[in-house]
């Protein structure tokens, strides 16, 4: 679904935002992207939305290399993704219904299709009774649900949420991520950038930590290595010495990663990454 191959991005002013990123997000995954401010999260998202292009490497979306895509083709790549913003980006003079319908209109959907689909999406996010309200009359949580409805209405194969809970009451943040999880359960890939550790801890999803333009931790990779190590060690009778050595190495690597992140709690990949992310933030502060 999303693949980064040796991707580096240096801005014109010389800032190296991303350095040699390698990553694969499979269809149907739910991924949290964590990292301190200036770590490269926004650049990471911009490369996916084709707002920026990498200096090196390839960004592949749905099997299509978008690294140096023609301008005219960008809108069609974007139609595969639904974007959710921290500041909601709703149009205040339009009703909830019109805000959602607007997203369909601008990609050329027919009025008949809009009439059919908007109420369905609004009911999906639990706002069918607020269709005629204006965004200014709603709470932050409700507004973000409108934002989510708008992102979903064109039936994208992935949702890219840039700190969607950043402007919302913490209690309501869980509601939004619950909704994203539900959407993910129905098959939509979800990529969510966040700062809120409580959320990441609560929802056991894949976590990618970016620091200084590099991926410093990826729970999927750690889990994969753990699984490989466990599988091999369970069957030591049937494998040769080389396999045992590889298994030991893998386990060692996973343990090192955990130690590096200074996790003193019961080892789990999620906690290891979170601990690292918290450290980063403390350092930033």
């Amino acid at each position: 679904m999303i693949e980064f191959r040796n991707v580096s991005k240096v801005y014109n002013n010389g800032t190296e935002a991303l350095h040699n990123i390698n990553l694969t997000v499979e269809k149907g995954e739910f991924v949290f992207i964590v990292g301190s401010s200036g770590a490269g999260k926004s650049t990471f998202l911009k490369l996916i939305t084709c707002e920026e292009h990498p200096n090196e490497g390839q960004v592949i979306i749905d099997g299509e290399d978008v690294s140096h895509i023609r301008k005219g083709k960008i809108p069609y790549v974007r139609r595969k993704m639904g974007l959710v913003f921290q500041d909601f980006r709703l149009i205040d003079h339009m009703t909830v219904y019109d805000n959602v319908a607007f997203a369909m209109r601008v990609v050329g959907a027919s009025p008949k299709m809009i009439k059919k689909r908007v109420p369905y999406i609004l009911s999906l996010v639990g706002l069918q009774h607020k269709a005629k309200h204006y965004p200014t009359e709603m709470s932050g949580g409700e507004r973000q649900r409108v934002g989510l409805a708008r992102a979903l209405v064109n039936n994208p194969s992935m949702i890219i949420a840039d700190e969607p809970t950043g402007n919302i009451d913490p209690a309501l943040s869980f509601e939004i991520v619950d909704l994203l999880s539900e959407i993910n359960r129905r098959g939509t890939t979800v990529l969510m950038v966040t700062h809120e550790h409580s959320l990441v801890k609560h929802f056991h999803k894949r976590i990618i930590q970016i620091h200084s333009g590099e991926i410093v931790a990826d729970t999927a990779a750690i889990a994969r290595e753990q699984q490989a190590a466990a599988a091999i060690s369970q069957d030591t009778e049937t494998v040769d010495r080389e396999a045992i050595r590889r298994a030991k190495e893998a386990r060692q690597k996973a343990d090192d990663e955990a130690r590096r992140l200074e996790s003193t709690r019961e080892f789990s990949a999620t906690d290891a990454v979170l601990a690292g992310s918290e450290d980063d933030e403390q350092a930033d502060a």
Partner: protein
Amino acid sequence: MKIHNIGYLFKEGIKNLWKNRTMSIASIGVLISCLLLTGCAVLISMNLTSMMSSIEGNNSVTIYLNEGLPSLSAIEVGEQIRSIENISECNFVPKDDALADMMERLGDDGTILNGLDGDDNFLPDAYTISMYDLSLYDDTMNQIQAIEGVDRYTDYSHIATMLSNIDLIVRVASLAIIVILGIVSLFIISNTVKVTMFSRRTEISIMKSVGATNGFVRIPFIVEGMIIGLISGGVSVTVLLLAYDRAVMALYNIVPFLTAVDIDPYIGYIIAAYAVVGALFGLFGGSISIGKYLNNEGENAVA
């Protein structure tokens, strides 16, 4: 482009125009002055050219005789003129014919001259003459002036030179003004569209983030520019045609013997030209700013 989109995009363009009405009115005002000046310059130039060609075309001089000169004397004067070597043609124009001719040229307005016939006719008898050699013009005219009974003559050669000078000044001045106002109009239209774009930047960024094509984003702004152009074109052509009508009437009252160019047969073309020019101005003005905006910031969907 699907049909249901066209209606939507036009509606958006009109909405833009209304939301931004102060700037829209300013753009329309400047474009109207530009189009009006262009129209005036063209009409003045057309009339001057037509006058010049009619004067130069017949290459004739009208010699007016003294008022109340007896017919016999008038015939004598004619004989004397004909005896001058350089005269190729010499025709008598009785004052009644001159009056009838003037009434005919004035059309419906000619009726005001009713009752001025016979003894009340204010026009004098005249001869129209042509020469073989125009380089002997001054010499020939001196000889004619010396004949007893000749009052004055119309020296069209000087008028033609004067008209040609005026025409040149009008053309150069109007061209300069039109170019300056044209640039100002484009600038103002593009600024108006820019203001609309600024006030709608959230919408544009949302449009881009959900995958609207640049063409789709552009159309309402171009529609806005074109409507500004069309309104300006419509107002200017109406004002111009009404003003021309009035100006021609006023001119006939002051100088009855002048013939203004009749634009009635061309009204259709003039209206079409104004609509097209207005719309093109709007199109360019609108396209300049939205094109620039989309190139600079148009791909921003996330930030």
